[in-house]
C-alpha cells in the first residue's frame, strides 16, 4: 500500500511535459503494437489462403484434366474400332489410334505430376491415403494402354492394307475364282459366289453363324470341284489348294475377331475399374477445396479475435491514460480556473489548493501568492485613493474658480476680436471706396484735364497760324511756349494714366520670352532713328513667368532709357542679359540703404539692361524711381521722368526688385528680379 502511495506521489511531482510525454509515448507504443499485430495477422492469413487455394485448385484441375483426357482416349479408340473397316486401317490408325495413344500418354503425365504434387505439398493426410488409389489408377491406365496396344496389333494383323488377313483372303478369293472359271461349269461359280456372299455378310456383321454357313458351302464347293468334269487333275488340285487357303484365312479371321472382341470386353472392365477411382478423386478434390475454405475461415476468425484483443487492449490503455491525465492535469486546471473566476469577480480571499508538484502546482502556488499580494495592494490603494480624492476635490474647486476667470477673459477676447473684424471690414469698405474714388479721379484726369489743354494748344495754334503776321517775334515766342507747355502737360497726363493703369490692371501668369521682346524693342528703336550707331547684345532665351504686356512696357522703358542716355556715344552698346545675385557685384554697388535692404539675398536669377551712356550719380539712385523725378536737364534728355516709376511698379507687381548700378559718364546698369513669381 505504501508503495502505491510512493508511486502516486512520484507521478504527481512529475512536470506536465513529462506527463504528456509519457502518455503520448505509451499511446504511440500501443498504436504501433496494434499496427504490427494487424499486419502480421493479415500476412499469415493471406499466405495460408494463397497456399490452400492454389494447391487445392491445382489438384482439382489436374484430376479433371486427367479424367477428360482418359474420356477422350476412349472415345478415339472406339472411333478407331468402328471406322477402320470403312476408311482403311492406315487412315484410321493415323487419325484415331495415334491420337488416343497421345491422350493416354497425357493422362500418365498428369497423373505423375499429381502424385509429385501430393508428395511435395504436405497438404493433407487424406491425400496420403489416396496415394493407393492413385497408384491403382496409374496401373489401370497403363493396363488400358497396353490393351489398346494389343487390340491395335490384332486389328493390324486383320486389316493391314496389303499384308492383313482380309487382304490375303481377298487375294485367295480372286485366285480361286480364276481357277474355277477355267471350266464352264456354272454350278461351281454359283457355289463360289454363295460362299462369298456369306463371307461378306460375316465381315459386315461379325455374326459367326454366317461364317459357318460359308464353311458349309465351301464343303459343297470342294465336292463340286472334285467332281467337276471340266477340270483336269492339276487344275482341280490348284483350285482345291486355293479353296483350302481361303478357308484357312477365313478361320483365322474369325479367331482374330474373337480376340478383338475379348479386348473390347477387357476395356469395359478396365473402365469399370478406373471410373470409380476417378469419381473418388473428384470427390476428394472437392472435399479438399471445402477443407481449404474451412481453414481460411478459421484463420480469419482467429485473426479477427487477435485484432479485437489488440483493439480492446489499446482502448483500455487509452482510457487509463486519459483518466490519469485528467486526474493530474485537467482537474487541476479547472480548479485554477474556478479560483481565477472568483478572483475576477472580486473575491480576493480565494485560493487554489492543488495537490500537485508539477507546473500547475507551481502556478497555483504563484496564484495564491498573487492573491495575497493583491489583497495587500488593494487595501493600500483604497487608503491612497481616499487621500487623493480629497486632494482632487480641493484642486477642482481651485480650478473651477480659475476656469471662470478664463472664461471671462475669453469673452473679452471674443468681443475685441469681433470689434477688430468689424473695423477691418469697415476699413476694407473704406479702402474699396477710396480705390473707386481713385479710379474715378484717374478717369476724370484723363478726360477733363485734357480738354482745357487741347483748347490752350488749339487756340494758340490757331492764333499762330492765322495771326502770325500781326504778332512780333516775342509774341510768337510766347505762343510757342504756351504750345510746348500744353503738349508737355499732355504727355505728363498720358504717363500718369499709364502708371495708374499698371497698378490697376489684372496680372497674367504665363511664360514670357523677354529676349524676344527686347529684340523687338531694339528693332523698333533702330527703325525710328536709323542714323544711330548702336550695338544691341541680347542673351538667348530669357524666359520668365509673368504678364507679357506689362513686361513689355517695363522693357520698353528700360531699353528706351538706355537708348536715350547712350545717344551721345559714338558707338552705343546696349546689353540685355542674366546673371545671379552673387555675380552682379551687389556688395560693390554704392546703393542707398533704402534700396539695398529690399534686395533679396537669394541665389535667384537676376536680369539686367546695361548701357554705356552718360550714367548718373548713385547718390540720387533712390529718387530715380519716384514719378516725375529727373536727373538731367530737359534740353539734354527729354522725358517726363515717369519711365522708371513704371518699371518699378511692374517689377514690384511681379514680386521682384529693381535697382541700378551706375557712375557718371560710365554707363548705367538696371538689375531686376522676379523673386515672388519665379
Amino acid at each position: 500500500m505504501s508503495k502505491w502511495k510512493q508511486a502516486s506521489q512520484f507521478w504527481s511531482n512529475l512536470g506536465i511535459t513529462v506527463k504528456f510525454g509519457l502518455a503520448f509515448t505509451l499511446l504511440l507504443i500501443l498504436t504501433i503494437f496494434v499496427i504490427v499485430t494487424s499486419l502480421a495477422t493479415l500476412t499469415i492469413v493471406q499466405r495460408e489462403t494463397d497456399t490452400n487455394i492454389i494447391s487445392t485448385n491445382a489438384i482439382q484441375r489436374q484430376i479433371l484434366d486427367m479424367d477428360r483426357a482418359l474420356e477422350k482416349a476412349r472415345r478415339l479408340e472406339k472411333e478407331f474400332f468402328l471406322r477402320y473397316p470403312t476408311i482403311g486401317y492406315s487412315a484410321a490408325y493415323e487419325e484415331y489410334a495415334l491420337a488416343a495413344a497421345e491422350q493416354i500418354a497425357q493422362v500418365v503425365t498428369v497423373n505423375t505430376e499429381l502424385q509429385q504434387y501430393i508428395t511435395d505439398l504436405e497438404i493433407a493426410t487424406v491425400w496420403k491415403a489416396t496415394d493407393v488409389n492413385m497408384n491403382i489408377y496409374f496401373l489401370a491406365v497403363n493396363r488400358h494402354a497396353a490393351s489398346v496396344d494389343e487390340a491395335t496389333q490384332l486389328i493390324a494383323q486383320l486389316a493391314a492394307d496389303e499384308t492383313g488377313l482380309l487382304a490375303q483372303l481377298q487375294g485367295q478369293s480372286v485366285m480361286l475364282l480364276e481357277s474355277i472359271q477355267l471350266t464352264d461349269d456354272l454350278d461351281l461359280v454359283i457355289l463360289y459366289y454363295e460362299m462369298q456372299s456369306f463371307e461378306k455378310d460375316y465381315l459386315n456383321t461379325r455374326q459367326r453363324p454366317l461364317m459357318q454357313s460359308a464353311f458349309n458351302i465351301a464343303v459343297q464347293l470342294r465336292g463340286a470341284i472334285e467332281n467337276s468334269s471340266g477340270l483336269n487333275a492339276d487344275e482341280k488340285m490348284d483350285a482345291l489348294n486355293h479353296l483350302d487357303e481361303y478357308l484357312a484365312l477365313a478361320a483365322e479371321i474369325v479367331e482374330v475377331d474373337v480376340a478383338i472382341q475379348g479386348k473390347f470386353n477387357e476395356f469395359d472392365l478396365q473402365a469399370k475399374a478406373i471410373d470409380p477411382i476417378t469419381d473418388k478423386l473428384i470427390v476428394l478434390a472437392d472435399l479438399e477445396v471445402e477443407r481449404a475454405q474451412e481453414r481460411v475461415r478459421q484463420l480469419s476468425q482467429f485473426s479477427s479475435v487477435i485484432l479485437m484483443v489488440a483493439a480492446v487492449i489499446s482502448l483500455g490503455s487509452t482510457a487509463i491514460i486519459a483518466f490519469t491525465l485528467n486526474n493530474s492535469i485537467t482537474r487541476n486546471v479547472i480548479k485554477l480556473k474556478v479560483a481565477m473566476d472568483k478572483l475576477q469577480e472580486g473575491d480576493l480571499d480565494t485560493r487554489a489548493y492543488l495537490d500537485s508538484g508539477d507546473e500547475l502546482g507551481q502556478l497555483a502556488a504563484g496564484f495564491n501568492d498573487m492573491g495575497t499580494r493583491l489583497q495587500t495592494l488593494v487595501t493600500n490603494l483604497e487608503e491612497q485613493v481616499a487621500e487623493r480624492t480629497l486632494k482632487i476635490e480641493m484642486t477642482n474647486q481651485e480650478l473651477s474658480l480659475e476656469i471662470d476667470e478664463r472664461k471671462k477673459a475669453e469673452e473679452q477676447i471674443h468681443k475685441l476680436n469681433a470689434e477688430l473684424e468689424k473695423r477691418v471690414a469697415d476699413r476694407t469698405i473704406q479702402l474699396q471706396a477710396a480705390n473707386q474714388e481713385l479710379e474715378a479721379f484717374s478717369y476724370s484726369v484723363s478726360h477733363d484735364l485734357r480738354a482745357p489743354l487741347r483748347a490752350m494748344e488749339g487756340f494758340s495754334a490757331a492764333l499762330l497760324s492765322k495771326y502770325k503776321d500781326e504778332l512780333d517775334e516775342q509774341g510768337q515766342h510766347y505762343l510757342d511756349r504756351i504750345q510746348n507747355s500744353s503738349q508737355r502737360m499732355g504727355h505728363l497726363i498720358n504717363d500718369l494714366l499709364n502708371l495708374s493703369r499698371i497698378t490697376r490692371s489684372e496680372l497674367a501668369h504665363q511664360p514670357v520670352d523677354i529676349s524676344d521682346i527686347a529684340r523687338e524693342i531694339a528693332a523698333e528703336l533702330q527703325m525710328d532713328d536709323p542714323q544711330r550707331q548702336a550695338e544691341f547684345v541680347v542673351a538667348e532665351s530669357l524666359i520668365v513667368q509673368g504678364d507679357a504686356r506689362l513686361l513689355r512696357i517695363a522693357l520698353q522703358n528700360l531699353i528706351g532709357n538706355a537708348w536715350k542716355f547712350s545717344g551721345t556715344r559714338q558707338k552705343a552698346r546696349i546689353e540685355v542679359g542674366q546673371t545671379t545675385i552673387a555675380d552682379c557685384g551687389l556688395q560693390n554697388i554704392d546703393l542707398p540703404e533704402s534700396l539695398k535692404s529690399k534686395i533679396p539675398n537669394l541665389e535667384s536669377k537676376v536680369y539686367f539692361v546695361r548701357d554705356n551712356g552718360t550714367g548718373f550719380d548713385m547718390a540720387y539712385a533712390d529718387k530715380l524711381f519716384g514719378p516725375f523725378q529727373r536727373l538731367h536737364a530737359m534740353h539734354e534728355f527729354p522725358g517726363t521722368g515717369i519711365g522708371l516709376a513704371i518699371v518699378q511698379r511692374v517689377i514690384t507687381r511681379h514680386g521682384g526688385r529693381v535697382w541700378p548700378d551706375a557712375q557718371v559718364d560710365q554707363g548705367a546698369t538696371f538689375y531686376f528680379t522676379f523673386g515672388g513669381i519665379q
Partner: protein
Amino acid sequence: MNGKIILLVEDNPDDEELTLLALKESNILNEVVVARDGVEALDYLFATGQYAESAPSRTPQLILLDLKLPKLDGLDVLKRLRADPRTQLIPVVILTSSSEEEDMVASYRLGANSYVRKPVEFHHFANAIKQLGLYWLILNEIPQQKQ
C-alpha cells in the same frame, strides 16, 4: 458741299469751336448741327423736345459723339440710336479725350463705327478731323434711309 449733315455732340465749347475750326481748315463745309448734351442730340434725331416744333430735321450723314456729356452720356445716346430703326445705321464716330480701354470696348460693343481720341496737339487734332470728314462723308457709303 453736298447737303450732308454732320451732328456734333459736344458739351465743351472749346472743343466745339476747335472741331468746327478744324473742319473749316480741312475745307469740309457741310452743315454741322451741334448738340450740347445727350438729350438734345436725341431730341434732334427723333424730332422731340425742343426740335418737336421745328421743321422736320434731316438725318445726319455722320455723328461725332463725345462720351462725357451732361444729362445723358455718350454711351447711353449710342445705345438709344442703335435701338431705333431710324438711326441704327447712321455712322457714329466716338470723339473723346478718354483713352480708357473699357470705354473703347463699351463703345464698339454698342455699335460705334470708329473710336478716335482727341489729340492734345491742334495740328494732330485738325488732321484727325480732316481724315474723318474725308472718309465718312466722301469715301464711305451708307444705304438710303428707310423711312
